[in-house]
């Protein structure tokens, strides 16, 4: 059986990489004695499947991974066993059983919602920058890839963009960024908009299917994916 878990990555632990988080999970599951399936062969590996990589330095309250199990275990029990074994800032907030044949997170997730703090701007300036993006036909950025400069157009991936108020040292930007052909990073959006990047937090991942949107833990509306909410 496979269980999908939703977890957070907030606080200091945001400075670790996607790979680091994968290893935290591997060790946490072993410490929690969760009966994870291992691959066969000379170097057995736990069968864990992570979704879109979260850029190092970003926070998230909507990370997902799929865990293959050798023995049946309720999502609630899995969360209870592994939760205390994960570092501070990595909290399991929901878990559910995956139906057979559910696509992988990598295949399914089509966009992410981001909450991005932009330091040093007032709300008016941010709104003006947002407007410029929304009316533009293209939003080119240059990035280095394999030692060569590549120009990418971000505009098709900017699905929604708005501001959400200001605070003492800046303003808050809300962005829905597409994941295909590749996931756009908040840092790239900031670069393209010509604004500074503060703390960026992924708040939601969306799966677009048949014109409607689902969160990865609600893949089956009939309810086989039992939501488990944290008690605390």
């Amino acid at each position, binding site marked *: 059986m496979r269980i999908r878990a939703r977890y957070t990555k907030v606080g*200091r*632990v945001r*400075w*670790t*990489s996607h*790979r*680091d988080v994968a*290893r*935290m999970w*591997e*060790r*946490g*599951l*072993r*410490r929690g004695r969760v009966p994870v399936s*291992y691959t066969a062969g*000379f*170097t*057995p590996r736990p069968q864990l499947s992570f979704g879109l990589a979260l850029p*190092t*330095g970003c926070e998230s309250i909507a990370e997902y991974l799929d865990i293959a199990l050798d023995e049946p275990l309720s999502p609630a029990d899995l969360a209870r066993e592994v939760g205390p*074994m994960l*570092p*501070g800032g990595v909290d399991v907030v929901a878990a559910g059983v995956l139906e057979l044949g559910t696509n992988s997170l990598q295949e399914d997730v089509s966009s992410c919602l981001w909450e991005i703090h932009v330091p040093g701007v007032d709300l008016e300036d941010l709104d003006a920058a947002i407007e410029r993006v929304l009316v533009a036909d293209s939003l080119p950025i240059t990035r280095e890839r394999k030692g060569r400069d590549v120009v990418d157009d971000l505009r098709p991936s900017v699905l929604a963009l708005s501001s959400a108020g200001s605070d003492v040292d800046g303003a808050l930007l809300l962005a829905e960024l597409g994941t295909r052909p590749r996931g756009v990073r908040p840092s790239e959006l900031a670069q393209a908009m010509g604004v500074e*990047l503060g703390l960026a937090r992924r708040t939601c991942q969306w799966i677009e299917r048949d014109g409607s949107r689902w969160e990865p833990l609600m893949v089956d509306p009939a309810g086989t994916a039992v939501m488990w909410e944290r008690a605390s």
Partner: protein
Amino acid sequence: MTSLWPRIEPLLAQVTKPARYIGGELGASQPVHAPGRVAWLLLYPDTYEIGLPNQGLQILYEILNERPDAVAERAYAPWTDMEAAMRSASVPLFSLESSLSAGEFDVLAFNLSAELTYTNVLNMVDLAGVPVRGADRDASHPLVVAGGHCAFNPEPLADFVDAFVLGDGEEAVGDLTEVIGSWRATGGERHDLLRALASVPGCYVPSCYEPTYAHGRLTGVTPRVSGVPERVEKRTIADLGEWPYPKQQLVPLIEVVHDRLNVEVFRGCTRGCRFCQAGMITRPVRERPAAQVDQMVRDGLDRTGYDEVTLTSLSSADFSGIGDVVSSVINDPECSGQVSVSLPSLRVDAFTVGLAAEIQKVRRTGLTFAPEGGTWRMRQVINKLISEEDLYAAVDAAFSQGWRRVKLYFLIGLPTETDDDVLGITRLAGACAEIGRRYHHNVTVTASVGGFVPKAHTPFQWFGQNTMEELRRKVGLLKEAARGTRGLTLRWHDPEATAVEGLVSRGDRRMGAVIEHVWRQGGTFQEWSEHFDLALWRSGLEAAGLDFADGVYRHRDQHEVLAWDHVSAGLHRDFLWQDFQEALAEHGLEDCRWTPCYDCGACTGLGVEHMVASAVPPAGGSQGTGQDLATGGAVPVRFLETAGVKTGSSGTRVS
């Protein structure tokens, strides 16, 4: 004491691997500072990834944090990008746990594991806002102390480190805590503290000693004040079983070297390899009880979630309970076939098919053997008494159990070495590859070749190191020979870095000016090839009026004063010299753990003994004698005339 975190975090977005600076490891303590507690900052003068796994530092970290009168935090050398960011934002070196400024601690305690990190020691002291030279510090500054293997020649760092601790630190850190605590309570001057420390056993306070020179050579390092020992003896814990540390091995959030559970199965080694400083300065052998090893492995795996455990020591296959421990972990249903065991520093004579079969049950980690010398003659000189048959049997065992890659460690530039000895390396490695091809189509044998650096307190401490040109020539010979050898990969260390390591490791107090020069010119992270800079060391030597060749390449005279003569690892200088002569005569010397005592001085002088559970070498194999000691071990090796081992004249029993 205020946390610097709000000033640190904004820097993290600018640097590579920011998680090096966030702490948060499983097992990290949550320190509570209090006026009655001596605050230790334990530092490793290299990156987080290299320093975090250091077991010595972790052991002392736990022991100090268990004490009611101490608190310990950690810091590692910030990488160059982080250092630049810190300096430009005026952020000092900080502790990982509480983000406190390093300058606020009572003690900055460095682990010294490699000579090329010395410029990082200075850099970290400077980043702490503390004067780098001990003479410039006053009572308001932290005390700078250092321990670890390199402390056995303390002189190159004598101007910068207030006190060195020689040998095992488990008990010494407690003594230091008490001395520092009571000094602080009475509010004395800094020199009062230094004097008090100088009378702690195992503690060397360089400012209490004066070096003298004549004709450009060191003539002695003698007490400058009364009441301090002329020769400082190392500390030795008698029973490793009383110190089951670390109990809470740190599990980092990011990948580090040796990223697995480590359980120390014994300390010390009496194999007597003459090039090996670790084996000489950590005598005698003290085994951990097998039941405790088993418990530490189980508890450790449970606690950490690691799926690999290393049984650490200088030669783990010599551990009396090795077979039982390995198979009990591998075959434990709790580990459900997912936990692998690795043994560092495998001696080929102790690696059997049985051990290979056990280890490979879970997953085949890399397999490394260390024959060190390419010919039997060479191995007799260095006293690494393993026969070609031993090596071939071990490699055969490995390949037959499914391994396809084997790594072999060798040294070049050893005493009496001929070109034939050097070329023996590729012959031996090539033959190993051929054995592999009996089992697999594609095999790789990697011969990793390091240049030999003579170290303090070893029989080779008098030996003039090969020049970098000579080492380069020998590497050239090997490259040429390896070219035509199927399945053989050759790796070698940079002869320039080898030369500088040799310069520093046998340097006297005048080397301090050179180290300071290199640091002031920006020469940090010298053990990293992208930062190593020979020109800085040459200009430093020139400024100090010292000669490179004299320091590195010159053979020392039998009676010459050596920079470390006033500190002791328990070994008699006569024993070391005698053993050097045996080496030059190509005489091997068997292991005194199971055979006669050679009176090296370690046991008798320190009043401790080998603690070994097995009366014979546990894993079988010839143990260098050409005989199977596992069954015939009662026969003293020197009587085996046909064994092909010439034993030294010092191989007589001292009762």
